[in-house]
């Protein structure tokens, strides 16, 4: 049988193939743009509660869910891989089961929370320009963190670090 792995070079071949697989996990531009739009909607929340009616606020909040799901679905399709915590796995294995990119994920949550608090505080004091600046800066940071998370996942794919 010619195709049998007769020597340890098979391990090296497997490593190169994993490198190729990991290279597919690069976010396309539309994904980063969509992520920025999604976070812009999230950070528009404090402005919406202050300046818009309750109905508009919930409309904006509800819009972030389909945007997020659409982005994840698109990324799965484009990369050909489903990675990270997924609802069924979370139920089965616990929330922090999937380790790669976890620090970036935690940072994303912290930045979201801090931005929300800062925006609310600035809006209350009437410093609207500063609140807008904070929101814009936070969107940039969140997009950078999403890229960092995907970089962590790529690294794990190369090394098998995300193996279940």
């Amino acid at each position, binding site marked *: *049988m010619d*195709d*049998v*792995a007769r*020597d*340890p*070079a*098979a*391990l*090296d*071949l*497997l*490593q*190169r*193939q*994993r490198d*190729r*697989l*990991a290279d*597919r996990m690069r976010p396309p531009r539309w994904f980063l743009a969509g992520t920025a739009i999604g976070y812009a909607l999230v950070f528009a929340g404090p402005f919406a509660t202050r300046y818009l009616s309750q109905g508009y606020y919930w409309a904006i909040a509800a819009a972030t869910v389909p945007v997020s799901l659409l982005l994840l679905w698109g990324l799965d*399709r484009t*990369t*050909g*891989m*489903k*990675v*990270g915590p*997924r609802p069924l*796995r979370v139920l089965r294995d616990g929330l922090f089961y999937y*380790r*790669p990119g976890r620090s970036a994920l935690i940072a994303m949550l912290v930045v979201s929370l801090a931005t929300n608090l800062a925006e609310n505080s600035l809006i209350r004091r009437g410093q609207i320009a500063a609140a807008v600046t904070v929101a814009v800066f936070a969107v940039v940071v969140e997009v950078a963190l999403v890229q960092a998370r995907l970089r962590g*996942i790529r690294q*794990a*794919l*190369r*090394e*098998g*670090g*995300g*193996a*279940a």
Partner: protein
Amino acid sequence: MTARLDPLIHPITRLSICGLLAAGADWVEFAALRDAAGISDSVLSKQSRVLEDAGYMEVRKGAVGRRPRTWFRLTAEGRQALQGHLAWLAQLEEAVSASVPDAPQAATRPADRAQPRPVLPPLLGNS
């Protein structure tokens, strides 16, 4: 985990398929797996059926519009078998290195890798 040769995973194509599925992704799509492994559609179809019949691989078929989409995932049994087989290959590598001490290691290494890296622990993952 015991290091043992698994005759089902031993052919290089099936080893590639299992190794790629064990890299950490939950599900991997047909085209992604085919491209990463560098094999044809028919070879992947044939080998994946063998692995599915053995209970090493789970297959989910769907469609986006009219285009069929097939997703693969390694089962727990398949993952265990792969880990045992990779451990066996690593032992073989050690044995070969010990028997040929002056063998030029860099010859089998790809040119883009400046430093040799340990193969076994990363490939086995952290399970």
